[in-house]
């Protein structure tokens, strides 16, 4: 049971995390800066008896992992902006039918083709609202290579546990970064598997919540539990239903099944929150600069706290509110024109000034930019 020390790239760490969590199926379509994820899976899955397939496009890739998931495999795809947009329809389908799966999005600068090899965090709101209709979302954002391993591992666990697509919102900064990582031993990592039905195949109803945790069990195809699944609104039996009571019940449950557990879903790091009157909030690649800024500010004697969000959706409202309510200045540092700052604004009282340290020109935000939004720097 020893730690694992190595030089690892962010993209590679996501593969390691997924494999350690039990992923044995990958379908994808190459796109910079996520292609290393595919390449790594292509090399590592077959020796494990797993399957890698390069599909004809991102839509097909998303479909294939949902199919593989229903066939009983833990499944992942990876992409970046343009491909993430293409996957949205089926991300919604996975939400609706409750298919466990993980989508890794290594963000690059958009919109459109943008700057394919440059970092950005421009798809954060898309991760929440990208597919049509009211849907829940579960997304994490790693800010280091070690984080990437751990959060991808966690994403696979959550996908299995909550039966939904989970998004790992990497960005080019972290995806392409190689750094020294120290990972826990494999034995220490706790793997979660989807629930298997308790009853008999005859009495099985695929969307019946057997033990009241709001998450129905999911037997793999071929196991004798035959059932129907559809992206239409459906009742407990899995068949289409359009009575408002039923549609409401389903949609409510899809949201409630994570709302109920959200406090356990909030992952974050915080530094010096107590002795602070200003707060920096950041995530992903930008959090590296935020950390540097925080360090410098502290060295200058400023009372600054730092909150690095790892769970992005559901947005950790309570954590942010708690960290921010007693501050005189909140700086939200992100590599876009202001996305999660909107959530912070929504939550916080208007009397606290909320400032954005933002950058969306394809360059990693600098500590200086963040410092400039703090009060008392000069």
């Amino acid at each position, binding site marked *: 049971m020893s730690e694992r*020390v*190595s*030089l690892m790239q962010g993209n590679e760490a996501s593969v390691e995390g997924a494999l350690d969590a039990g992923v044995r199926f990958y379908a994808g379509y190459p796109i*910079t*800066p996520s292609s290393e994820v595919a390449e790594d899976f292509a090399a590592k899955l077959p020796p494990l008896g797993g399957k890698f397939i390069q599909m004809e496009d991102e839509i097909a890739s998303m479909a294939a992992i949902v199919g593989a998931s229903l066939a009983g495999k833990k499944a992942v795809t990876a992409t970046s902006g343009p491909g993430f947009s293409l996957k949205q329809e089926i991300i919604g389908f996975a939400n609706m039918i409750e298919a466990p799966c993980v989508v890794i999005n290594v963000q690059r600068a958009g919109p459109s083709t943008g700057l*394919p*090899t440059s970092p950005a965090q421009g798809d954060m709101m898309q991760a929440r609202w990208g597919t049509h209709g009211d849907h829940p979302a579960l997304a994490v954002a790693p800010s280091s290579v070690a984080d990437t391993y751990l959060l991808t591992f966690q994403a696979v666990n959550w996908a299995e546990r909550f039966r939904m697509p989970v998004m790992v919102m990497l960005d080019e*900064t972290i995806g*392409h*970064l*190689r*750094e*020294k990582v120290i990972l826990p031993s494999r034995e220490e990592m706790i793997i979660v598997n989807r629930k298997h039905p308790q009853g008999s195949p005859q009495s099985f109803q695929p969307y019946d919540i057997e033990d009241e945790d709001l998450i129905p069990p999911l037997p793999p195809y071929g196991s004798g539990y035959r059932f129907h699944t559809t992206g239409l609104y459906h009742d407990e039996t899995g068949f289409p239903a359009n009575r408002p009571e039923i549609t409401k019940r389903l949609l409510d449950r899809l949201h409630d099944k994570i709302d109920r557990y959200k406090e356990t879903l909030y992952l974050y790091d915080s530094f010096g929150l107590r002795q602070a009157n200003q707060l920096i909030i950041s995530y992903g690649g930008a959090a*590296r*600069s935020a*950390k*540097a800024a925080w*360090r410098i500010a502290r060295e200058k004697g400023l009372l600054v706290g730092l909150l690095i969000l790892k769970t992005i959706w559901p947005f950790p409202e309570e954590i942010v509110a708690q960290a921010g309510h007693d501050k005189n200045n909140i700086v939200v540092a992100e590599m876009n024109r202001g996305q999660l700052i909107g959530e912070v604004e929504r939550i916080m009282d208007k009397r606290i000034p909320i400032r954005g340290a933002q950058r969306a020109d394809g360059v*990693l935000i*600098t*500590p200086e930019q963040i410092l400039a939004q703090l009060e008392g720097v000069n």
Partner: protein
Amino acid sequence: MGRYEIRLSGAGGQGLILAGFILAEAVVRFTDQEVIQTQSYGPEARGGASKAEVIISDEEIDYPQVTKPDFLLALTQEAYNKYNRDLKEYGTMIVDERVDAAFRGGPTYVVPIQRKTQERLGTRLVVNVVSLALFNHLHEVVPVDKLQEAVLERVPRGTEDLNKKALELGQELAQELNTYKVFREEEEEDE
């Protein structure tokens, strides 16, 4: 040491990305220091000038980009032109002899890396490893035998001997570094 920023640059295909990777891996395996490695991607990595960067530090490395390299290797003029600008004041430079470099205040070594590699090893394929050995000698990042271990693990099978020779050549050139060192007058930079 504190944060030390290294930039290895040259033409795409000269293997500097691999060199940066090997260097970073050697740091992980054979030292207690923190390390980060980044590089060019996309069309940039294929032609023209391309670079690999390594940051080594005793402390946690938060901001992961090289902004003011302490050290620059430039094997081609194009790479030099593109990547020399933000070298730290008094930063160290090793450039190939064919590169027309301006003195920037720090130690500047003009070394016939490419020519010597071609002459002595009959190929330029290993300029990256030669350069790596050269740099490592200068900065003593890891002991020579450890560097060799790191290199041999990552180079294609069948090229081990060639790469050992490249390491030796790098060492050798390193011995002569002062011979190659050139101080020039600082010129007006017109950008």
